[in-house]
């Protein structure tokens, strides 16, 4: 694979992450979707975890974190920590299960969305001392994210410009 096409693919990845997070941000302030908005950034990220090269996992996580921070006031380091933890978990799971299967993708996206939200809430709680949000909000987020991953997660790697990132196996 030419390195220039891979470089272009990384650029496209940032572009897609940016637009997906922007869409998620717009949906989360929309009165109709609000708390039922799936974590689309996480769905896209998990969709990639099962199909990109193992060596690329952590770079994907770093780019996902930077793009999410562009649309969030959560602490950047905490976001980075959340995505890197998920990439680490995925690198372990890939040796045991088929992460690119729809079911595993849905489970990982649901748990990832729940885990990341919970982690960011804990960070907020530790820093400013406000109470944690009700669990039903987080469970709704996990459920809609899992459903979204089941329905559209498989399209992640098929988005224009990303093919060079696919693992050749």
């Amino acid at each position, binding site marked *: 694979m030419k390195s220039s096409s891979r470089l272009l693919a990384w650029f496209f990845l940032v572009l897609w992450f*940016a637009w997906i997070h922007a*869409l998620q*941000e717009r949906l989360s302030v929309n009165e109709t979707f609000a708390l039922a908005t799936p974590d689309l950034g996480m769905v896209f990220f998990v969709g990639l975890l099962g199909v990109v090269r193992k060596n690329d996992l952590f770079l994907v996580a770093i780019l996902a974190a*930077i793009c999410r921070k562009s649309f969030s006031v959560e602490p950047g*380091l905490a976001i980075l*920590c959340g995505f890197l933890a998920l990439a680490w978990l995925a690198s372990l799971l890939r040796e045991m299960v088929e992460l690119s299967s729809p079911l595993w993708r849905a489970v990982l996206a649901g748990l990832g969305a729940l885990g990341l939200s919970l982690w960011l809430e804990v960070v907020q709680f530790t820093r400013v001392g*406000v109470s944690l949000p009700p669990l039903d909000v987080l469970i709704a987020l996990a459920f809609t994210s899992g459903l979204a991953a089941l329905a559209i997660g498989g399209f992640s790697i098929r988005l224009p410009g990303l093919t060079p990132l696919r693992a050749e196996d």
Partner: protein
Amino acid sequence: MIRDLGRRRTIYFVLLVVCAVLSLRPIPLVGGVIELVFVPTRLIAELVAPLAWLRSGEVRAAERQIDAEARVVRGAAADLLAIEQQSALPTRPKLLVGRRMIHGEVIRRSRGDLDRVEVRVASTEGIVPDLPVITGDQYVGRVARLGNQENMILVDLVTGKDFFVGASVARTDWRGEAIGESVEFVVGGLAPRSMDEQLHLALHNPSLRGIKKGPVHVFEPADMDPELAELSRGFSLGELQTLQTISGSELPLIQSPLDFKSGLFQVIVLAPEDKASAVEMLQLETFVEDNWIRTSTLTRGDVTPTREGRRLARGSLAGLRTGQAVALGAHLVGRVGETGPLAADLIGLGDPGVRLAVLAEIEGEASPRPLGELVALGRSRHDGSLGFRWICRIDLGEAREGELLEADLYTGSGEDGVPRGLFIGETELPTTRRPHEITVWQDPAVRELERVFVWKGPEVKRRPESVTRLGGTR
């Protein structure tokens, strides 16, 4: 090969743990370096700029509305603040004579040392350590020393555990008529904390035991420094009360009408009378254009649905600092969160944890009331109202239990980076002295804005160190 992979995973895991710890307990120096990783976020937010075009009509309409209201709301706020400043002066004629009065505003209080506040004064000429500080007819504390910046002083509050001031209470019979000599004692520090988070001043070494109630006034012994003793004499410290402890003994303490923890906004430094003007007041600087940095928002909301924040298009290189107020017109939009070199976070008022010192204009009352600190609990998804936690530590008139008072809320003093007089919203205030959750209605247009201003404040010069040292050694 497998061993190498295992080692790499272990190193990675250790790095993850370090990241997690730093997320929970940030270290500013490390945080500054990590912020560099997120510099591209400024550019990435621009990549989706076409999305903003879809709602540009709503944004322009909201900005026009806020701009149109600005003149009226600013005028109302300026009038209110002028009254607030005046209400810091003593009301009893006896307390007005023989003293030079220098007005000051509490600028910041340290989270670590609540018994010392930093005050910006109209003039530091003639201000020396130990001069008494008051607000209205109430005694507040003493000047500790000059601050590191011009026109700034540090004030030790009477709540400090090492603070002592002479005081007296008149002995009265059952009809309230004075009998015999008044009882003298020392006041300073806080009495043991009661359950309802109210603060009471402690009382020590009474000249006569058994006195249970009555108004307490400053009565410094003249042998200390006759001039200083005379300046503070007659100012009130509060009302003497007697509580029954669990063990059955009686605990005398003083209930002050002031909220020393977060509701002290305007103060007066008392100095000996001289040729200078008898009363010197601060100028209001909130609505001076040069004190604000113009910027815009890059996003409309946050990807996390439980947060209310936006990204700002300027960062620390443009002078943005964590905690600064963000406003448009006379409306407070939020406060600056984390800052990177090129972009920063704007934390909205609906974001849980935002802290504000608040001044209330209560319907039917001539002067505004400092409410103290409000902590944001979040925004209601049903009606868009804001929830705040407020510990009422002041008397709000003669309202009956359960009665609510309609009020407009403005920013007060004492929160670093937030100027006084920015409009927050409307509310109904409960009147009982205990913790409450109050609902505030904010103008919905405030959430639609793109063009905003960040408070940088008037330019302050650092004071030469020799002068600061001189001020600290009276």
